[in-house]
């Protein structure tokens, strides 16, 4: 184990004295950026798709929209996120002649991908809200959209919050694949430290530690949100 002490010394040397921490900070920032903005995009897309999928289907237009959404969900759930990243970065964007930084591409792809998953989560959430809530609103003359936005979706979100927390955690951890398109995330940063020192044990341990701390913080935040959204359930 005296060897291990040496390894730690070597890591600290690279991490602090040689400025490795700067790359780690950038990596952390990118990881969080991709996960948080991706989740936000995912919630918006997911909610829109979920609403389309619960729309009454006896007219042509909702059925048409529903078809598009089914295809979207099937594509983004049916292919690995790495494939989606590679397809966007090396195929779709060059074909369109657009040049975007890899982090931006990653944010968009993660958003589109989690949108597909969140749409199913949200659909479950909407279906878990008692149908009487929609009826109550419609009977007072509120349109479908207003009742959905003010009454049904807030209750649905409350119901799916634990699952959404899950999705966020998955996103954080999955960001480690963005190195495929050359973005600098937490994994790439520690990998570089390892390469520079020819010593991977400590950098990877510290990396795992940072991921765990991130997830613990998120778990706490989700719990806080659950508590504040649960106000309406408590009897006073």
């Amino acid at each position, binding site marked *: 184990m005296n060897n291990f002490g040496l390894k730690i010394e070597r890591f600290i040397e690279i991490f602090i004295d040689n400025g490795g921490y700067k790359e780690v900070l950038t990596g952390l920032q990118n990881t969080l950026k991709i996960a948080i903005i991706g989740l936000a995009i995912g919630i918006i897309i997911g909610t829109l798709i979920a609403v389309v999928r619960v729309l009454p289907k006896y007219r042509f237009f909702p059925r048409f929209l529903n078809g598009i959404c089914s295809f979207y969900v099937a594509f983004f759930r049916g292919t690995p996120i790495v494939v989606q990243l590679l397809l966007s970065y090396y195929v779709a964007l060059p074909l369109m002649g657009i040049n975007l930084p890899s982090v931006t591409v990653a944010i968009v792809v993660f958003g589109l991908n989690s949108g597909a998953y969140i749409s199913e989560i949200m659909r479950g959430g909407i279906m878990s809200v008692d149908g009487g809530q929609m009826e*109550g*609103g419609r*009977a*007072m*003359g509120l349109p479908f959209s*207003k009742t959905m936005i003010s009454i049904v979706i807030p209750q649905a979100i409350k119901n799916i919050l634990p699952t959404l927390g899950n999705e966020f955690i998955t996103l954080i951890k999955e960001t480690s694949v963005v190195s495929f398109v050359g973005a600098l995330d937490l994994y790439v940063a520690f990998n570089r430290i390892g390469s520079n020192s020819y010593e991977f044990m400590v950098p990877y341990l510290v990396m795992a530690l940072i991921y765990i701390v991130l997830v613990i913080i998120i778990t706490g935040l989700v719990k806080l949100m659950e508590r504040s959204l649960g106000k*309406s359930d*408590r009897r006073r």
Partner: protein
Amino acid sequence: MIDVVNLKKSFGDLDVLKDISISINKGEKVVVVGPSGSGKSTFLRCLNCMEDPTSGSIIFNGVDIADMNVDINIHRQKMGMVFQHFNLFNNKTVVQNIMLAPVYVEKKRMRKLKRKNPNGEAIKSTAQIKQEAHDQAMKLLERIGLQDKADCYPSSLSGGQKQRVAIVRSLAMNPDVILFDEPTSALDPEMVGEVLELMKELADSGMTMVVVTHEMGFAREIATRVLFMDEGKILEQAPPEEFFTNPKHPRLKDFLSKVL
């Protein structure tokens, strides 16, 4: 006020309503009774198009609201509805439940006024609209003695309190008629009284009401006309004294002998 003409409703192969025609006048209190499965709830839900009629028309204030091209929301705002299971909004406090629709409608009206305002009506700010709706909601809550529950969530109310809030919630829109769909069926026996009391008060104030209920005593006391429905048809309609003391249709005689 409401003219139902040749109303038919079927769910798939099942004909629930078979050619119903009836007029309901302003100020009338029509009570609909009948065995379960007779189509009385479906009939009531067709009146404000919560169920779209299969054929026939519902003429409300001169407009056929069964027509798919009519903006049903505008007409529903003038037709209150009270449900068996209250359907209060669980994520809103009691006072927010009452304010929601009036604030929405008034805001929409103000947006229209901003574009076109021929009479030069004063434009209210959102804060003003909310304040007015809040004042009105508090007045309504005072009327049912629940003003101290204004900021509670529905989950903390008893069944009777929930239903009374649901009734004043529909009153907040100043409706021309209120439809009651078995308003006391989901309540504990001791809470039925408070809800019926409030409905009586409404009836006395001249509100037009259509009530589907199993409370025969209530029907006898407040109805101006009682309808008996069975198998999707109105078999008999009469003022309550005649309806209960001198029923003509054999099916009604049979029904009354069981429930009275």
